């Protein structure tokens, strides 16, 4: 037994303060009060704010949690696992596809029995991509072996985060615990919430971190963690795990009872509203249950005995309590924000039905409805319709439609999408003004481009009407690049601003074919597309013009989480171009730091305060990483140097058609998150290049050439000339941060000098 559990004393009701905050803020507050050792995280909407709030608090010196920005959720789960295996207290938060990406790690965490707490801020799983709330991610959690608490309100998010750790670490449990709450509805809505004034109250409640377990923390006590097993052994391991899971139900009750003593708030297995005499009831998870309670009040005024059941815990599943609650209920409608396609009802429908099966006297008619997917709002009148359906089934004595979707509409024939412009392809995009040739004598590529004015005759690849912010640098960067590409393109946009702002269904700003895939995997996906085109062509099944060019467009975030996929694709040397627009952060999700964020720059996860001054490590040199894959062509470019970029695009096309993979990085401004003025976009990029922060160069068959040398052109400016334009770097120009500025300047100068050396030697 852990010391803390032995020493646990009865604590009287502790002093609490009132605040007005959201679910995400309360999850962060609970974590800060507990003062976890480690949080490994990767931003994904709508859970991102949890890490952001913790980073803000950290900058103010309010906790000591080591916040580790992972390269993706799979990495974040790895960080958490490694830390948990070392006996540290570990915390995480994620949503939707982030959760799916780490899914592989979750049974590892549970099956090897290392406690931790993770907030799952529930959201629709792709595809199609939808960033709003439903429970499709949560349903993948059901079989992971994690204890799952469900929090309907920001208050419950706070309370359950405190209870979760105590349950996870309990000697009878030793399992990871998930706190699931509704994306946006609970994560972002601000409510009145109570919290403990003194963090000591929370720390005393959760107790000391248990150390009497087999951890990788003491070299004097060596252990082997994660030996592989055969079925004979795995049966026993999983039986232990199953027993622990059921035991966690009793522990939940104990912990909830103790928590009620200090907080005054109770969390039974089931939240029952009007269920003492209900004849008709709804079973709803999380926030929708709250909405339905208002309808129960209204129905009861009309004399209808209505009620709502909503569980506070779904793993272990409170089957016995549900059976009891439904004893006298004539009809129950189970509304679920996810489906188990083809299962004749989503997962919880079957779990509730199976709970009822064990009561031979039960006669409850059960209806099942899939509703509110992808954040579709659930109004009180929707709950009314649910009750109406259930009441009708009581009247007729059976469920007319046992399982159905709710809230889908057939649509109007007249509104079917019709083509707006004629398909844009082929000759339209051949200006005939760009020439790339191999010089037979030098074997070098020679590129000729016309004045930019002439290229305005070539239609843009992106259509007007996209939803990017005013002054966004993405499309100017991309269009300049595409100016240099002759003929058809097939593009793949990885998740990011460029994708989101050009494809808000049912609108698209793409003139030619565009495929989206999640940003772990864009490069691999496009490599499949290229090879399929080539194979289909080879077999004579399609006719493709010879000059079709395949371009994968990604942000710098996509080159973090998708680095493995990009490198794999490069090593296979497919005939495609990877084009990265680098705005130095995860701007699409609210300006979190990426590995490309320069040191000291402020983002929402690298805040500036007394204990922290922006990002703590230097920016990733993605161009050099990609050059090390020995692909035929690597380049950098910027809008402020248009001819340079167009020429490189023309070369990129030649290499992608004739040799293999090309990687290019274009620096672009993000006025919103760089906190710069919209109108100075081009000047900011010019300064970044002239300060040698972003050198313009190319690596052609391994040979590095600087295509614009600010020193030689006598255009070199100090780094501060670039930094002064941006709110995110204002602090770096203050006297007190001069050392940090020097470090950044030194790093930039070192990289520039190394690049010069490469420029001067064909062997570097």
């Amino acid at each position, binding site marked *: 037994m852990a010391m803390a559990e032995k020493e646990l004393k009865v604590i009287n009701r502790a002093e609490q303060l009132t605040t007005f905050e959201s679910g995400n803020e309360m999850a962060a507050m609970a974590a800060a009060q507990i003062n976890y050792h480690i949080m490994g995280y990767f931003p994904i909407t709508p859970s991102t704010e949890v890490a952001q709030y913790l980073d803000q608090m950290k900058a103010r010196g309010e906790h000591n949690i080591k916040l580790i920005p992972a390269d993706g959720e799979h990495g974040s789960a790895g960080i958490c696992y490694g830390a948990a295996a070392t006996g540290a207290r570990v915390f995480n938060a994620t949503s939707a596809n982030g959760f799916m990406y780490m899914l592989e790690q979750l049974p590892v965490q549970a099956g090897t029995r290392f406690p931790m707490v993770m907030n799952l801020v529930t959201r629709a799983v792709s595809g199609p991509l939808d960033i709003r709330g439903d429970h499709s991610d949560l349903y993948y959690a059901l079989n992971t072996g994690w204890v799952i608490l469900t929090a309907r309100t920001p208050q419950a998010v706070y309370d359950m985060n405190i209870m979760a750790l105590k349950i996870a670490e309990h000697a009878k449990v030793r399992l990871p615990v998930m706190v699931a709450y509704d994306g946006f509805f609970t994560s972002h809505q601000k409510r009145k919430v109570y919290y403990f004034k003194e963090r000591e109250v929370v720390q005393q409640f959760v107790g000391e971190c248990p150390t009497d377990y087999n951890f990788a923390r003491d070299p004097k006590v060596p252990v082997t963690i994660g030996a592989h097993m055969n079925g004979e052994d795995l049966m026993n391991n999983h039986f232990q795990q199953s027993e622990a899971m059921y035991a966690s139900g009793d522990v939940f009750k104990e912990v909830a009872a103790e928590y009620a003593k200090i907080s005054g708030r109770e969390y039974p297995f089931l939240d029952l509203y009007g269920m003492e005499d209900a004849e008709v009831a709804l079973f709803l998870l999380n926030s929708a249950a709250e909405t339905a309670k208002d309808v129960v009040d209204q129905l009861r005024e009309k004399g209808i005995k209505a009620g709502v059941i909503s569980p506070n815990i779904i793993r272990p599943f409170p089957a016995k309590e549900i059976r009891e609650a439904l004893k006298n209920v004539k009809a129950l409608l189970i509304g679920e924000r996810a489906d188990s396609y083809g299962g004749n009802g989503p997962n919880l429908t079957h779990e509730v039905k199976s709970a009822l099966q064990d009561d031979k006297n039960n006669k409850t008619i059960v209806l099942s409805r899939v509703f509110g997917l992808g954040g579709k709002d659930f109004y009180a009148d929707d709950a009314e319709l649910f009750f109406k359906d259930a009441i009708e089934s009581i009247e007729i004595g059976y469920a007319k439609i046992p399982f159905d979707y709710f809230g889908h509409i057939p649509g109007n024939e007249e509104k079917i999408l019709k083509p707006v412009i*004629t398909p844009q392809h082929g000759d339209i995009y051949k200006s005939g003004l760009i020439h790339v040739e191999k010089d037979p004598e030098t074997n070098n590529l020679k590129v000729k481009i016309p004045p930019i004015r002439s290229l305005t005759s070539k239609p843009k690849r992106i259509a007007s009407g996209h939803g990017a912010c005013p002054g966004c640098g993405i499309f100017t960067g991309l269009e300049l690049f595409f100016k240099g590409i002759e003929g058809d393109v097939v593009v793949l946009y990885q998740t990011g601003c460029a994708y*989101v702002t050009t494809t808000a269904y049912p609108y698209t700003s793409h003139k030619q074919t565009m495929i989206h895939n999640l940003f772990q995997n864009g490069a691999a996906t496009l490599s499949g597309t290229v090879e399929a085109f080539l194979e289909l062509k080879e077999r004579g099944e399609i006719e493709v013009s010879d000059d079709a060019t395949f371009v994968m467009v990604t942000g710098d975030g996509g080159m973090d989480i998708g680095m493995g996929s990009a490198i794999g694709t490069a090593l296979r040397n497919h005939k495609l171009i990877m084009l990265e627009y680098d705005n130095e952060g995860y701007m699409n999700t609210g300006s979190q730091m990426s590995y490309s964020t320069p040191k000291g720059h402020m983002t929402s996860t690298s805040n500036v305060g007394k204990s922290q001054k922006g990002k703590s490590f230097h920016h990733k040199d993605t161009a050099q990483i990609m050059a090390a894959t020995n692909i035929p062509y690597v380049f950098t470019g910027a809008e402020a140097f248009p001819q340079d970029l167009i020429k490189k695009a023309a070369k990129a096309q030649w290499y992608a058609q004739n040799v293999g993979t090309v990687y290019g990085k274009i620096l672009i401004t993000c006025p919103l998150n760089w906190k710069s003025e919209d109108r100075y976009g081009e000047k900011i990029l010019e300064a970044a290049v002239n300060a040698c922060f972003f050198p313009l160069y190319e690596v052609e068959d391994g040979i590095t050439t600087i295509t614009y040398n600010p020193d030689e052109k006598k255009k070199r400016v100090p780094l501060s000339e670039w930094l002064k334009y941006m709110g995110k770097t204002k602090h770096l120009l203050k006297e007190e941060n001069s050392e940090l500025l020097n470090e950044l300047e030194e790093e930039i100068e070192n990289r520039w000098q190394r690049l010069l050396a490469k420029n001067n030697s064909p062997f570097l």
Partner: protein
Amino acid sequence: MAILPKKNELGFFEIRLESIGGLGANLAGKMLAEAGVLGLGLNGSNFSSYGSEKKGSPVKSFIRFCDPAVEIRAHSPIEQPHVVGVFHEALYKTIDVVSGLAPDGILLVNSTRNFDEIKRDLKLEYGTLAIIDALQIAVEEKTKVNTAMLGALFRICEFLDPESMKNVIRKTFEKKYPHLVEPNIRTFERGYNEVQFKTYETPVDAQGKSFSRPMPILGYETQEIGGVITAQANSVLKDLSGSRQGFLPKFEIEQCINCAACDTVCPDLCFVWEEGEDKRGRKQMFLKGIDYQYCKGCLKCVEACPTTALSDLRETIGYAESHRVKHNFPYVAGGVS
């Protein structure tokens, strides 16, 4: 305790703010809600519409107040508010900003125009109209529109305490930006004092503004399976002029040297070119003008222009429409003139 002037059947006094990303409506909503909940001990909730968080796109912020004993269970957007605050007047062209407004509701608009014009454009029949020139105040004080709007909203929500809000403003700025304390307090006070009201008499049998929930364009019988879109480039049908925050580029063709520097830097692909002949009879591209339907007013083109052909202009109503040069996209119907 009877602080709230009006309540709906669930006991809520409801406020909806209509804005575009970047004007600070979310923050204003949060501060308004906090003033009621933490300042006065009311119960309340506050949240925003969860669309794209891009600057310039429409956003809504919702505030519900109720007595302390009332539990807030509704999560859905506010459909029938008592107060609507419009931060960005141009929104009325694309959004029904007064949707569901109670018959005796109050509509606050950030505008330079007069009562009757706004009443006409926003199709308000009765109720109280409040006008504040928040942009002008913000420009004069070098502060933000949302602080002036907040001042006006405090005047409208008489139950809130403006003094406590001033303390919040003071606390927010005094540590890091002490020089911003006074301008912001002045902005708030000016919003509070300068807001003008006009009440249009509400007939006894008056109905509130009807509201409708947004319906998708397509349904399960009309969506292509898998969510594929076959109408490439249909975003050209969108009108993004509502993203502008008061300024646009003015184009004087006589000064233009057709260098295409503007075209290179325009994020919204607004510049319209046409082939013609130069003085020596050679084919060349010429800049015809700007398609203001897509212009978000970033003014990058003004910075890039090497001549005086492009310059800043404080937008007046009707300018963009009358000076727009339409893109001649290859529409399937044969082009739209």
